[in-house]
């Protein structure tokens, strides 16, 4: 490592964070950011399995027109839990709280995050919040969709109250993680690690953290008001008392639109790491990529109105929101062009993590460009509430964030556990997920443009053909994830020793042993150059 002096690369003892202290209780009360990251990994993986089962139930129901395996009421609930679990318990905590927790301190040469106790508390917030939210199943289950739109959601339903209170508690997990990351990035960088030398993953997490800290409290008050609306009928969102259901949509999306950048910005960070490492080339346009993350975070607060083009919002507001929404395309495209420029004349290694990164670029571009379609009011008036929208946000959230999570897991697995996964099988998992994904969601663009509405358990017979293709694709994705789970478990038990730096990464986490020692570095690294000095 040319850019680092004083960092020990050799593993002098067998002591690492995994065997530093033993016992279940030590794990559940740990203050080590790496262990907390792994707690998040396990939790998020379990929630992903639950959300995935709901997804397959949805697609199975939609395999044929008419009632296939469940009633309309059951379908509404399955769809609600699929959305709520995937958004609040998988994609939002996914990259920041798992990979971010583990690698943000390591990438800036810190021993831990700024507030280790808050970090652990954030995990418990997620667990408790998830428990409360899922307890709603005992009250018959919520059927409002994950967006809880009023006035449907204010019918004094205990299940909705449970759900929103669960979201309230889980929100603190996000706030505390974001707060921790901002302070850690500002205050705990190693000597020589200036803000212009922090890896792009850290820049992405930092931008995400700004949104987490500033937007999540608004969701907190929104769901609190929704719960109060259910209990007391306070009337803020109830037309009977002069309240306004659209006000709820404004409140909700004031958080939930920035929240989609909480989901995608960390993914951009992962991709920046993958592209540069597997091209063996210094990233093209470091500054542009770094600042475009912050730009996206800033713009994200002013676009929420594009969810209300047809909700009776004023036309002027609609036009302004439409314009600002298109602005998001600029910093996003800056990132994509810089990644492509990094690939140019790079020495490209098509290992599984790189395949996921390339898959991300392909799918995210489709998701992003269809986002511009939807930002155009004239088009959105026709496409809103159709499967076009469903396909669009799955291309961004699954084709984007989930691909990045998978790439990140395969990339950092050797560092986390000191072992290599079988790259061939990881590539097979990519094949199934990537192909399955397109088979599932590309037909949904077509279905949406033909006018098939979202959220229903049934559709007109002429949509059946494409829906069947889509369902087959969903099962292909399922197979891909099963292969991934087997590959990872096989790697855990049978993986070959990885050594400190199997991929030739240049950021600080690769300078220490795999798995890392308890305090990450035996000697605090002193940084003398940028993060991606490939030679």
């Amino acid at each position, binding site marked *: 490592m040319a850019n680092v002096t004083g960092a020990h690369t050799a593993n002098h003892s067998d002591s690492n964070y995994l065997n530093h202290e033993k016992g279940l209780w030590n794990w559940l009360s740990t203050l080590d950011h790496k262990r907390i990251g792994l707690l998040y990994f396990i939790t998020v993986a379990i929630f992903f399995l639950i959300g995935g089962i709901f997804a397959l139930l949805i697609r199975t129901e939609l395999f044929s027109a008419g009632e296939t395996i469940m009633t309309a009421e059951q379908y509404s609930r399955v769809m609600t839990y699929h959305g709520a679990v995937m958004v609040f318990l998988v994609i939002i905590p996914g990259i920041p709280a798992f990979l971010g927790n583990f690698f943000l301190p390591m990438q800036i040469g810190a021993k831990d995050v700024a507030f*280790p106790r808050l970090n652990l508390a954030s995990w418990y917030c997620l667990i408790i919040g998830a428990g409360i939210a899922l307890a709603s199943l005992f009250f018959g289950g919520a059927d409002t969709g994950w967006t809880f739109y009023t006035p449907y959601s204010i019918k004094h339903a205990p299940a909705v109250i449970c759900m929103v209170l669960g979201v309230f508690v889980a929100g603190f997990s996000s706030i505390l993680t974001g707060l921790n990351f901002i302070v850690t990035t500002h205050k705990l960088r190693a000597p020589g690690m200036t803000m212009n030398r922090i890896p792009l993953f850290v820049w992405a997490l930092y931008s995400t953290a700004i949104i987490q800290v500033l937007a999540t409290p608004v969701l907190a008050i929104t769901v609190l008001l929704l719960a109060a609306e259910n209990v007391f009928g306070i009337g803020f969102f109830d037309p009977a008392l002069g309240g306004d259901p659209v006000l709820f949509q404004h409140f909700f999306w004031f958080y939930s639109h920035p929240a989609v950048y909480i989901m995608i910005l960390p993914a951009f960070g992962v991709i920046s790491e993958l592209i540069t490492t597997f091209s063996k080339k210094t990233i093209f346009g470091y500054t542009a990529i770094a600042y475009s993350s912050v730009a996206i975070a800033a713009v994200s607060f002013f676009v929420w109105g594009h969810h209300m083009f047809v909700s009776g919002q004023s036309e002027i507001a609609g036009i302004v929101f439409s314009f600002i929404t298109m602005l998001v395309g600029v910093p996003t495209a800056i990132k994509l062009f810089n990644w492509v420029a990094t690939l140019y004349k790079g020495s490209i290694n098509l290992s599984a993590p790189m395949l996921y990164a390339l898959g991300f670029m392909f799918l995210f571009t489709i998701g992003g460009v269809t986002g511009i379609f939807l930002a155009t009011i004239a088009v959105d008036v026709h496409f809103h509430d159709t499967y076009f929208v469903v396909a669009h946000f799955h291309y961004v959230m699954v084709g984007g964030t989930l691909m990045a999570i998978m790439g990140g897991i395969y990339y950092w697995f050797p560092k986390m556990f000191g072992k290599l996964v079988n790259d061939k099988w990881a590539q097979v998992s990519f094949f199934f997920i990537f192909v399955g994904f397109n088979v599932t969601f590309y037909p949904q663009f077509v279905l949406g443009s033909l006018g098939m509405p979202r959220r229903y358990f049934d559709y007109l017979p002429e949509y059946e053909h494409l829906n069947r293709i889509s369902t087959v694709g969903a099962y292909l994705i399922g197979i891909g994830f099963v292969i991934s789970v087997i590959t990872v478990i096989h790697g855990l038990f049978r993986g070959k020793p990885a050594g400190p730096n199997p991929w030739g990464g240049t950021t600080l986490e690769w300078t220490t042993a795999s798995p890392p020692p308890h305090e990450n570095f035996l000697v605090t690294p002193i940084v003398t150059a940028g993060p991606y000095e490939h030679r």
Partner: protein
Amino acid sequence: MSTAKSSTPGVHQHAHHYDSAEHEYQSSKQGLWLFMCTEILMFGGLFVAYIIFHNMFPETFKVGSLFTDVKYGATNTVVLLFSSLTMALGIHYCQMRQQQKAVIALAVTILCGFAFMGIKWLEYSHKFHMGLLPGDWYAGNAEMIAAEIGNVTIPSNIALYFSFYFMMTGLHGVHVLVGMGLITWVMIRTMRGEFGPHFYTPVEGVGLFWHLVDLVWIYLFPLLYLVS
């Protein structure tokens, strides 16, 4: 592992991942200010809703505020402002390691919290008695209302005012209770002599929170009591 228990009074060991106590103090302070931002944004949602509905139904808010007692509200404002002073004094004495004075200042702050909540309790029970409850639970007694505010036409959605009244003061009240709990916690630590010129972060953090709670009330008071 983290904040090690100090062996000698007033000597604070910084946590293992910081370079120095000063480093830890600066980091904690940044974290606290970020947390204050989240609090402001959370209350911000309520204030935005207030502005919107006040614009739509000014009469509802005007008549609704007739039911509040400005004397109680003003007293509570003074109580909270005074408690902010004693809180600041508590921090100051902790920095000076004047343990006894610090404990007295913090105790007075807690007492102010009790006074505030006591007055709130009087106000709440009076409203409960009259049936002036939020939203669907509103059951205003016409005779009592006439006796209290005279012959004023009551807007049909007067319950909306009480929704705001109870949501805003309720959320604020919860913050006052949490603040009182936190001040009790730092007071106990002060008694143990844990704070001094080199380490007083918890007192300062709790103080910051208490001032924010105070500040929110400064806005709630005119919005709910004085709009008429």
